[in-house]
């Protein structure tokens, strides 16, 4: 079958690829573009490891067809640090020892980023809700929740 073109921005950079129709965004990002930060933990929409931000909204790249993203602005965890400086969320995950195996981490950070983009000073319940689509099997979630709350506090201090 003929390949079809897709074009979008990934972490601010223009990307254009020819893909097979029906290819998921997760496969397009990982196998075509080479951004392996979104992880395939289930391909069912039940684990959140593949979470990316599309036009400001949290989406599951495993259930999104790449060709529906033409013209979109896509953000992944690999694009968060700028010039070698970690994003406050990344810093907070490090400081809180909120990663163990690390497989869920990029998806968790995406979910947390969307939360903080819309709700800079979230309550614990809002953090819990924001992370609720992302499975972690190692940490018991508490260090991750604490990391997001810490990042929010450091953001608001920086803004102040």
């Amino acid at each position: 079958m003929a390949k079809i073109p897709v074009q979008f921005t990934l972490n601010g950079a223009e990307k254009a690829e020819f893909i097979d129709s029906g290819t998921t965004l997760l496969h397009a990002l990982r196998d075509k573009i080479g951004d392996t930060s979104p992880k395939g933990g289930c391909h069912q929409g039940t684990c959140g490891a593949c979470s990316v931000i599309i036009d400001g909204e949290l989406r599951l790249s495993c259930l999104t067809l790449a060709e529906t993203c033409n013209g979109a602005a896509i953000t992944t965890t690999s694009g968060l640090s700028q010039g070698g400086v970690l994003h406050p969320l990344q810093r907070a995950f490090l400081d809180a020892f909120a990663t163990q195996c690390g497989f869920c981490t990029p998806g968790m950070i995406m979910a947390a980023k969307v939360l903080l983009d819309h709700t800079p000073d979230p309550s614990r319940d809002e953090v819990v809700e924001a992370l609720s689509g992302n499975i972690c099997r190692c940490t018991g979630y508490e260090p991750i929740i604490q990391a997001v709350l810490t990042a929010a506090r450091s953001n608001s201090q920086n803004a102040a």
Partner: protein
Amino acid sequence: MAIKRGRGVAAINYPTGMNLGGDPTQALVHSTPTGNFMVTLSSVDLGQGMKQIMAQICAETIGVPTDRVVVDTADTDTGPHCMGTFASRGTHRAGNAVIQAAREARQVMLEVAAEELEVNASDLETDGQGNILVKGAPQRSISIFDVALSAHFKRGRSISGRGMFLIPRSYPEKETGAMKPSTCYAHACTVAEVEVDDETGEITVLTVKNVFEIGRALNPKMVEQQLVGGSWMGISHALYETTEPYYPDRDHGGTDFNQYLMPGPGDLAQTEIIVLERPSADGPYGAKGPGEMCANPQIPAIANAVFDAVGVRIDTLPITPERILRALKAQASN
């Protein structure tokens, strides 16, 4: 409707290392020309932080800061044999192998330093910051950077070492079962507090207070990671998890994270962790394996707390709302 509260306790021990031993692990350590150290292994990091812990063990033994140690692991073309990462054996077995290898490398390092400083190697000590000092005369010193350069380019010495750790295999005696399953045991005691809804059987774990004795917390923050995550998994095992919810009926097995139940971030018990350290005689710096045992005591503690709350015994895992409700109904009809 009544929400009933109860608490329960459980105390456990857990063996470190593969049951009955016979599970070797090797390590190689060598310095680079500028006095950094490479640890070569074939052990696997599952996320528990094996690489970081091996770096700290090597650094402590050699006498350098941890960031001067690089761990290269799990390439069978370069790393010597390790039985694997399981049975709470990683830190204990690989750690001992790293210590042995690092000691051998340290001895060469001190010998080279001794030649440079014109003293006996036995008169030297490390300051942990990357320097080798003459005991009692710390103004006479040489940096490990310079020692490694000297070893490589002047004295033709390889600052390296080999480590192998093996607990000899024990074979159970057929009739009596006399055997040596393990050389050291971690310990725990957990008190759990629950609420049970006696109309729906729903359980909320309010608090778990865990006391863990783990030999030695080699890196306290990383120990905490495992203990907190393990305590969560223990609660999960107690109340949620199974691939066969109607066992031994084989039907209705969950196939995704929606159907395979585990506590979500909104289900977390208030968790307290207290760590005691009784160094094990054969553990690396006294460490035992904390990774598995930390998920065990919550299960019976919660089962006992449920009984304390509503007076029914659920002797089948997981302790689901359905099992509680059935037991409450049976209790009411008796």
